[in-house]
């Protein structure tokens, strides 16, 4: 226990306090020109203590202080009903639901593509260039197109956003799975051959289990970019709901505190998602007897 505190808690606290210290410094520095101008306009005497205090109390600061963001998050999570349009929990849930849906679609698609690529030579030759090309198109450019096109065929709401997430997240899954399915030692392939094993049995007894650790590594990347995809997908929909919408309305009205609190929420959400995948992967390895 003490060991855990020494090795995990203290380093984390040290980094957090260093970031906080630098952040407060920049808050004062970046917000002071406007504040000083204000002092001069109303010709009041001011000291550095006044300046520090006042730069941290702007309604629309260039850089809000951490405590302003935390209090905004507190106000919009604990103090608001979950159903309220101003609740961050409500908006986070909207983003989370499309993130998860997109992640599952992307994972399924990624695994399917990987299986085709590994099991079929023609697919291997023809599919990979397209998959790589798909990721060179900037998502910000293609996201509105996906939304518009799907809207035209009568699909709106969760699914189009999830598809943007899926579009981003299938790629690391495919690349990781192809590598994973090809990872068995040649000696093991030979072994299966001496059993005159069918292709299906070779796949399920050897290739698939060998790919599990590769899959989880890919899934950690995929779930984080799924969240990015969901947020990007919320921007062109007219900013109705979701963390992306909070970011957009925040920037319409110069509500920097709102933007930052949405950003922090998104980062927290991403961290929680990656941690969840990690826990699932640990459990899977334990069941498979691969933990050491």
């Amino acid at each position, binding site marked *: 226990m003490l060991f855990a505190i020494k090795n995990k808690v203290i380093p984390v606290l040290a980094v957090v306090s260093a970031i906080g210290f630098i952040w407060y410094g920049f808050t004062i520095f970046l917000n002071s020109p406007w504040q000083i101008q204000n002092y001069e306009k109303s010709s009041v005497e001011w000291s550095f203590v006044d300046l520090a205090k006042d730069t941290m109390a702007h309604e629309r600061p260039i850089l809000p202080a951490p405590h302003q963001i935390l209090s905004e998050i507190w106000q919009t999570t604990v103090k608001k009903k979950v159903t309220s349009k101003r609740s961050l929990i409500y908006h986070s849930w909207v983003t989370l639901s499309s993130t998860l849906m997109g992640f599952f679609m992307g994972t399924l698609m990624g695994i399917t593509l990987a299986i085709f690529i590994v099991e079929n030579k023609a697919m291997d030759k023809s599919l990979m260039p397209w998959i790589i090309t798909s990721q060179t198109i900037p998502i910000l450019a293609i996201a509105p197109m996906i939304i518009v096109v799907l809207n035209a065929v009568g699909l709106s709401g969760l699914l189009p956003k999830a598809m943007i997430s899926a579009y981003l997240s299938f790629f690391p899954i495919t690349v990781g799975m192809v590598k994973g399915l090809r990872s068995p*030692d040649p*000696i*093991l392939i*030979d*072994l*299966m*051959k*001496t*059993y*005159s*094993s*069918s292709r299906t*049995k070779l796949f399920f*007894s*050897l290739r698939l*289990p060998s790919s*599990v650790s590769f899959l989880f590594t890919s899934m950690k990347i995929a779930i984080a970019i799924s969240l990015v995809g969901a947020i990007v997908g919320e921007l062109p929909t007219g900013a109705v709901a979701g963390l992306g919408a909070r970011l957009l309305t925040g920037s319409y009205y110069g509500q920097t505190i709102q933007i930052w609190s949405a950003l922090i929420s998104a980062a927290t959400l991403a961290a929680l998602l990656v941690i969840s995948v990690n826990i699932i992967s640990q459990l899977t390895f334990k069941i*498979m*007897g*691969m933990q*050491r």
Partner: protein
Amino acid sequence: MKQAVSSKSVISAKKLNLIFKTNDGAVHALKDIDLEVEEGDFVSFIGPSGCGKTTFLRVVAELEKPSDGEITVNGKTPKIARKDRDYGYVFQAPALLQWRSISQNISLPLEIMGYSKNEQKERVEKNIDLVGLSGFEKKFPWQLSGGMQQRASIARALAFDADLLLMDEPFGALDEIVRDHLNEQLLELWKKTKKTICFVTHSIPEAVYLSTKIVVMSPRPGRITDIIHSDLPLKRPLNIRESQKFLEIAQRVRRGLRESHLEN
């Protein structure tokens, strides 16, 4: 010469050639191999690296295809023998699946070959017992020592009861003491099961200790330079290695290896 009446040919190679085409040109891995392995034989293949001993075993197992010549396994082509699951193969490395327990690893070939659950359980138990791994059924490969892992891989090769066992330097990575122990056990096992065993090795004492027939091979091109029929008694305690007969056979093997070395 033995009488041909009582013995049945298990592996028969005539003028067998295998040439690997590589970027640096052709490599003559096997040249004009003529060999008969009879039922119940324990045949060791010995020679320096690149002499084709492993390649020959792989041709028998149809993991490589010969360029030329004839080879039959149990009177069939290697391909049909493989499809009929006529042999068990033990590799240089234990080649156990990391996500399977020892008993699950041993039942792998049984699952693939479609044995019933009861039959699987029975055979796994029997073979775990045979290689002395009782009590380790639920352990995972990484929890076992190298020697134990290799024993598990032997149990796996025995599980489906093929009459022919192909072993490619199975004890090469193990230390001397473990190796002696496993050699003794392998001999016991061979006597008990009456299988035909082809055994690739680098070690002269190992080859002489185990075999009824020693095939000495030489590299570039890979070929057979000597075939020695061992007349050591079947009962072989470890100290047989200090007997006069043993040393004579070992000397002949060494001479064979040295001659081929000088030729090159």
